[in-house]
């Protein structure tokens, strides 16, 4: 009966129900978009680090993220290779540079240079062309998302990077940059040439540790031999990059702040409508109390009312949020909806509605059951 009563109370006043649902819906969509953007940003920030085949990253001291790193000497690769427990050490070059569009004008890009046969970092999700195409003179691979930004239409188009000409030999899908700066994949030497980096310089050494080897010991040994460089595990580099882009720049804080704001606004709207609904049904709650219902029974009715609102609001809110996610899929800043985020949103919706119900419960608990005799 508690469910029936909650359901009927809720649907008795359709206008109030609509206001409640709009509150929940607004809150869910806002939180979903903000947290989805956060997840999307997070994925973009760490995608290169996660994709790179290396247990330890050797880099210049003070490197804050994948895209912005100072060069180190190429010989550090050989020092790493000479360390017991290291099975491979692959050089990698990254740097910001200018891409001159064939149509005129220029845009900033991040050049990533690695020789795919070394197994360090190669483009993935290739939808046109292949990674072996990078062996061709001037070859680069870019992501479909940025074709317009780069002023090209697809494979075969040319542009100029620095003082060199490049030709697009392949397209990837979904390799996007948090800074909205397109990634340009090419070979190690061509990358050096595009960014005017001396031949004895690289940006990272991706070091692979032998199975069973003590990664911390290998790291300590490399550190001892390369006191001017930093050696980070994949997880450490991921955290450092995330901390820089999401927290040092304030971008992540803004996204999380937006989500919290959504929750607060949603909670206030739901609390107000639930409170006023409870106020309207006060004489019924007093009757329940007079009939001898326990406090728990009445709490259950109100919480079920809140729970039903949560389920309805969640379903409608998620429908809108998923539409937005779908529409953002091919943009430079995709919104990500993971099963974890969907579950989190469901939990937050229930929590928001339960918190909202507290004011209504407080009101009911102050009822004087003797009001049933008031005429």
């Amino acid at each position, binding site marked *: *009966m*508690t469910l*029936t*009563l909650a359901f*009927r*109370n809720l649907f*008795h006043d359709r206008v109030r129900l609509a206001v409640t649902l709009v509150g929940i819906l607004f809150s869910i969509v806002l939180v979903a978009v903000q947290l989805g953007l956060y997840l999307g940003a997070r994925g973009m920030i760490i995608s290169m680090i996660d994709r790179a085949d290396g247990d330890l990253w050797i880099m210049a001291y003070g490197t804050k993220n994948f895209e912005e790193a100072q060069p180190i000497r190429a010989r550090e690769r050989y020092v790493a290779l000479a360390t017991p427990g290291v099975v491979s050490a692959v050089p990698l070059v990254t740097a910001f540079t200018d891409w001159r569009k064939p149509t005129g004008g220029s845009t900033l890009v991040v050049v990533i240079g690695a020789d795919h046969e070394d197994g360090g970092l190669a483009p993935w999700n290739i939808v046109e062309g292949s990674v072996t195409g990078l062996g061709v003179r001037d070859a680069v691979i870019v992501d479909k998302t940025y074709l317009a930004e780069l002023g090209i239409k697809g494979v075969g188009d040319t542009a100029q990077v620095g003082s060199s000409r490049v030709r697009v030999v392949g397209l990837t899908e979904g390799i996007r940059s948090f800074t909205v700066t397109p990634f340009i994949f090419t070979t190690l030497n061509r990358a050096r040439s595009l960014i005017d980096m001396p031949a004895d310089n690289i940006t990272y050494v991706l070091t692979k540790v032998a199975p069973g080897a003590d990664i911390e010991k290998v790291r300590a040994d490399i550190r001892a031999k390369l006191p001017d460089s930093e050696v980070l595990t994949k997880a450490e580099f991921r955290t450092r990059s995330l901390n820089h882009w999401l927290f040092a720049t304030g971008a992540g804080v803004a996204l999380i702040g937006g989500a919290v704001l959504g929750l607060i606004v949603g909670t206030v709207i739901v609390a107000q409508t639930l409170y006023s609904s409870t106020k309207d049904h006060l*004489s*019924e709650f007093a*009757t*329940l*109390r*007079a*009939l*001898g*219902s*326990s*406090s728990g*029974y009445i709490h259950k009715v109100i919480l079920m009312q809140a729970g039903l609102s949560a389920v309805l609001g969640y379903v409608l809110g998620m429908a809108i949020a998923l539409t937005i996610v779908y529409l953002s899929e091919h943009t430079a800043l995709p919104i990500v909806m993971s099963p974890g985020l969907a579950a989190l949103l469901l939990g937050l919706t229930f929590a928001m509605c339960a918190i909202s119900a507290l004011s209504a419960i407080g009101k009911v608990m102050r009822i004087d*059951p*003797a009001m*049933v*005799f008031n*005429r």
Partner: protein
Amino acid sequence: MTAIATVQETPATAAPAGTSVVLEATDIVKELGHGAGKVRALKGVSLALNTGELTLLMGPSGSGKTTLLSILGCILSPTSGTLTVAGKPTTGLTPEALASLRRRHVGFIFQSYNLFPTLTAEENVRLALDVRGDRGSDAIVHAQRALHHVGLRHKLKSYPANLSGGEQQRVAVARSLVGAPSVILADEPTAALDSENGLAVMALLSQIAKDKSRAVLAVTHDPRTVPFADRILRIEDGLIVGEERRTEGVETVHELARNRKRKANA
């Protein structure tokens, strides 16, 4: 024909032969308000309700009828005095314990029926069982049986808005009955009803009161209800000032109608 014997008894606690006391109040005092605004609504009321009897509590407005009903129904706690319901003393009980006592031993009928507008007649009755934890098909059967008992077999699925005032009050009577309480307390049960429906409801209460396991107390100032009473308690200014016990049987609705017709013709 009926007759009323006026007997002054103070306190109003004597139980006639063949009945037993299910509710007993002794020296109930209730003060309402605070400080200078404090009012003594009840000034030492003692009464007992006996099984198998319909007792009317009559008195003018402000005499303390509703306050006394609230205390007898364990909704309000007295400032002093003792109350025993179904053999259980209520002194010192927490609000939750009082609620528990209410749902097991007390049934209420309200002047404005206090039905849930969003529930059907059957659901309204079933609610009284649900708060006691009685659920499932048995509860449905009991609720339907209670509605049959009050003559609403054909209105099980009707919402209060689709019922007449008399029918709504009969649903409220069924709701008060369904949990088989020891005491049924009715607050002005006929006040919102026309003459015909008022008489029908009183006849129903009178019939319910015949059950030897239950006592019925109705607060009223409606003189039409008097012929149905086994006993009438008069309250004035927070005190029981008199008790009248009817010594002969209660008129049936048909007798009442016949007598009223006779009077009108005369």
